């Protein structure tokens, strides 16, 4: 690792809390930076909201309305109008994942290139899937595990656990793959590094990042919406 090849998740500090080692890593630092930026943005929006007119006059208001409306219609078309309050959650997830994926553009390490981040996101999806399953299907939720034949129960359970694993690994693998390739390119001699990284950044960070964000959110919605019976969606 002396060749400048460095795409590790650095441990900045470790400290003990209740006898457990807690490490403070790049991921968490970058997450905090993104959180700060997004929360600041949200505060700005909240302050400017009072000055919003019925007919948008500023590009800012147009932009805010466009993204909120897009999220709203996205959620209601995927999960039904009755459950569009999930937009509150997915809007945050979408913004966080998108900013994380684009964070590589600023030569920071993307938080989503850490399985902990994607694992946490997929875990929340997992929780929501089964929470909604129990809430909407009640008793028949557990009966679904014994179908089509009771002896397939272990396979059903494994497939339920495979959902968050594949969700988290998909996002993690895509972004980490991009990070590793970018790290490899940046460790090359200087004359190769002219222009080429820009194109690669566009592909790995902008294109793959936006696409994987979209896919992550959409798959989460699809998995959660799958548990809601069709007749309860409206």
């Amino acid at each position, binding site marked *: 690792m002396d060749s400048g090849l460095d795409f*590790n998740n*650095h*441990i900045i500090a470790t400290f003990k809390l209740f006898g457990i080692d807690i490490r403070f890593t790049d991921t968490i630092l970058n997450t905090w930076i993104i959180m700060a930026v997004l*929360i600041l943005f949200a*505060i700005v929006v909240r302050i400017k909201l009072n000055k919003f007119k019925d007919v948008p006059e500023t590009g800012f208001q147009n932009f805010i309305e466009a993204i909120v409306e897009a999220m709203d219609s996205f959620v209601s078309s995927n999960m039904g109008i009755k459950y569009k309050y999930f937009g509150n959650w997915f809007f*945050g997830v979408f913004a*966080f994942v998108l900013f994380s994926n684009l964070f590589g553009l600023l030569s920071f390490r993307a938080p989503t290139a850490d399985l*902990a*981040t994607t694992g946490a996101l997929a875990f929340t999806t997992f929780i929501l899937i089964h929470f909604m399953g129990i809430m909407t299907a009640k008793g028949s939720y557990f009966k679904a595990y014994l179908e089509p034949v009771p002896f397939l129960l272990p396979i059903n359970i494994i497939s339920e656990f495979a959902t968050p694993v594949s969700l988290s690994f998909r996002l993690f693998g895509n972004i*980490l793959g991009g990070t590793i390739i970018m790290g490899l390119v940046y460790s090359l001699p200087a004359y190769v590094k002219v222009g080429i990284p820009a194109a690669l950044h566009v592909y790995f960070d902008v294109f793959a990042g936006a696409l994987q964000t979209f896919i992550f959110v959409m798959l989460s919605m699809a998995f959660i919406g799958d548990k809601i019976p069709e007749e309860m969606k409206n």
Partner: protein
Amino acid sequence: MNGFILTLDQSFLIDVAWQLLNTVILCGVLSFLLYKPVLKFMEKRRERIQNQLDTADEKLTDAGRLKAEYEKKLREINTEREEILSMARTRAAQREQEIISQAKKEAETLKNRAMTDIQREQEKAKDEMKKQIIEISSAMASRFIKASIDENQQKKLADEVISELGDVKWQN
């Protein structure tokens, strides 16, 4: 610098918990500060515009109703006017007819009266003539028979002669 890419141990679980906390906080704050208020704002605006549209619709239907009413009234007025006009026309025609017939009648009566007048005049003239003739004849007769017959007898005689003659001859 020490680092790692992927570890699957206890500290990974702690990282997951940490990121879970971060994500939940971020999503909560974004939802509370950005998503919900903007959505509420848009919803309110949508409702307001819907209300305005509804009232506009109502007003439009009202206006349509009023217009139809007025048009109906106008049509009624038109038909009424037609009726009145035609009635007036017929009445005028009737009146005209009446006037003409009255005029004719009057003319008839006038003519009749004139006729009777003329007849009376004729009769008068006849009488006059009879008288004159009588006078003349009596004068002539007196001349002729001055001595033999007195005047009264003469007159009687002449009257008899003239009335016998006159009844036949004066009437054509």
